[in-house]
């Protein structure tokens, strides 16, 4: 299970302040702690409040790379943020994210190919988020074909079936689970799958419980990557236990400790 740490994001107040003041300590600390807690990739997002997002992203990339050497996931809603940041990455990065809309694919896939980047692709198209499982699969298929046309290998493709808040659209949760299963049937090798986990618990009261139960359910349906908070120990324990129950790790009584070695 590939873990993408979500904590370096301008949506968090302390990160937003650190970016505004160019205070490296907060960022470096979050980078170290997330990697120590098991993150394989760190997502970096300057947040919506930044005045100069491209410049802030480059600063963030440089700062995190001074502290750790894991791949970074460049996460932004603004297109012009990506290339300057991708250029700075020392390890093959992630692009977070494209959608299945053709103009987005035509923008992002050449970037992924140029920078040897993995790319997260949301199953959204010109019509928005599909409400059905099949709608998600259809867009996933289009994304895969487009990736092949642009020379982006399947192992660099992470398809995100769009996690929606259970509090708003409860019926979408089982549809997402079914979509995860369907994506695996689309090709061999199949594309990776990823979710932005905390979306499921947005505005809900039992956030942590919802996150960890949903993560385990998704893993049972074949999810092999997630953007999540690795500092949530109960969440990580659930993830490790799910991997064990899916026979991805060899059991021993101290399996939690063994995983963390």
């Amino acid at each position, binding site marked *: 299970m590939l873990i993408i740490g979500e904590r370096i994001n301008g949506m968090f107040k302390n990160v937003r302040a650190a970016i505004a003041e160019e205070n490296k300590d907060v960022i470096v600390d979050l980078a170290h702690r997330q990697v120590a807690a098991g993150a394989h990739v760190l997502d970096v997002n300057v947040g919506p409040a930044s005045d100069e997002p491209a410049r802030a992203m480059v600063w963030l990339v440089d700062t995190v790379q001074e502290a750790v050497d894991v791949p970074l996931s460049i996460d932004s809603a603004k297109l012009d943020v990506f290339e300057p940041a991708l250029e700075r990455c020392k390890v093959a990065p992630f692009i977070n994210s494209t959608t299945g809309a053709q103009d987005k694919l035509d923008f992002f896939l050449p970037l992924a190919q140029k920078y040897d980047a993995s790319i997260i692709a949301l199953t959204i198209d010109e019509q928005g988020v599909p409400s059905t499982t099949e709608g998600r699969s259809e867009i996933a298929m289009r994304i895969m074909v487009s990736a092949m046309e642009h020379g982006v290998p399947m192992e660099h493709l992470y398809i995100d079936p769009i996690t929606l808040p259970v509090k708003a659209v409860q019926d979408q949760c089982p549809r997402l689970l079914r979509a995860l299963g369907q994506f695996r049937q689309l090709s061999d090798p199949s594309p990776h799958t990823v979710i932005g986990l905390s979306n499921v618990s947005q505005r809900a009261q039992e956030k942590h419980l919802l996150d960890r139960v949903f993560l385990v359910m998704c893993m049972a349906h074949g999810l092999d990557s997630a953007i999540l908070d690795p500092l949530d120990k109960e969440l990580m324990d659930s993830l490790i236990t799910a991997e064990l129950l899916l026979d991805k*790790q*060899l059991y*021993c*009584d101290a399996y939690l*400790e*063994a995983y963390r*070695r």
Partner: protein
Amino acid sequence: MSLPPYQESWKGSIGTLTLGTERNGSHTVTIGGHTTLPFLGFEGETRPPVIALEVWDQAPADWSGPLAEAWRDVSADAVAWAKRGVDELGVDMICLRLVSASPDLADSSPAKCSEVAEAVADAVGVPLFIWGCGDNAKDNEVLAAVSRALRGRNFLFGMAEEDNYKTLAVSCLADNHAIVALSPLDINIQKQVNILITDMGLPIERIVAYPTTGGLGYGLEYAYSIMERSRLAALGGDKMMSTPIMAVVGAETWKAKESIADETVAPQWGALKERATLWEAMTAVTFVQAGVDILVMRHPEAIAAVQKTLGTLAG
């Protein structure tokens, strides 16, 4: 169109462990270091296993005829026994079993055991694997003393088990030795013992797993599959399984009735000596294919047969 060659590429690898020192005419032996399955040299790094001759610190009383015969003139002298193994058979290591320490036998003192171990170590120049008598309380005393006496020689000590590992782990850590972790044909306990030992501060690279051994006809397939699964788990990235592996072949096969019953008892089985040495050699060669790193063996002809096979396999 020709098919491209298919090669497995593994995430994990087996740790490399060098035993012994290059001081005073001694030499080292290196085991492990595999990045793929045994003998798949086209895929990655592999290293054939080494053979350790099992030597006792007192003459074995009840060994099967051909085995007792092979060592009769040296079996009361561990130094001469070990020297013959190294000089004449060319074994890579000596497994010195401190059998005499057993409270049920001679109950030898830790000092006496240390003396024997030092004498053997000085005489042979190859790394030793020092193995206690199997009585936990006594072994904790004896092995601690022998470890101290052989401090810095970088030898191998055993056995650490799930319910008795702390004393030996501390000794190995303090005196710079490596440790053998025993698990009773149970891959989950194998991993657990490794975690317990590394918790004591001894790194995983200083552990050799002994998942216990089933001889031909007595659980060989089961022992084989555990060894293979543990190797696959390690190559798959499980760091806590990434140890070299030992098989104690001689002691297992020479207790089977096929290695004891002579021609008068079982004429249809053929000559005892050939049968029993083949039993040991066949068991050893089978484990070679599962990825074993140290073979602890007993009979000179079985050892020679395995050496010959290893030479052929390693090309």
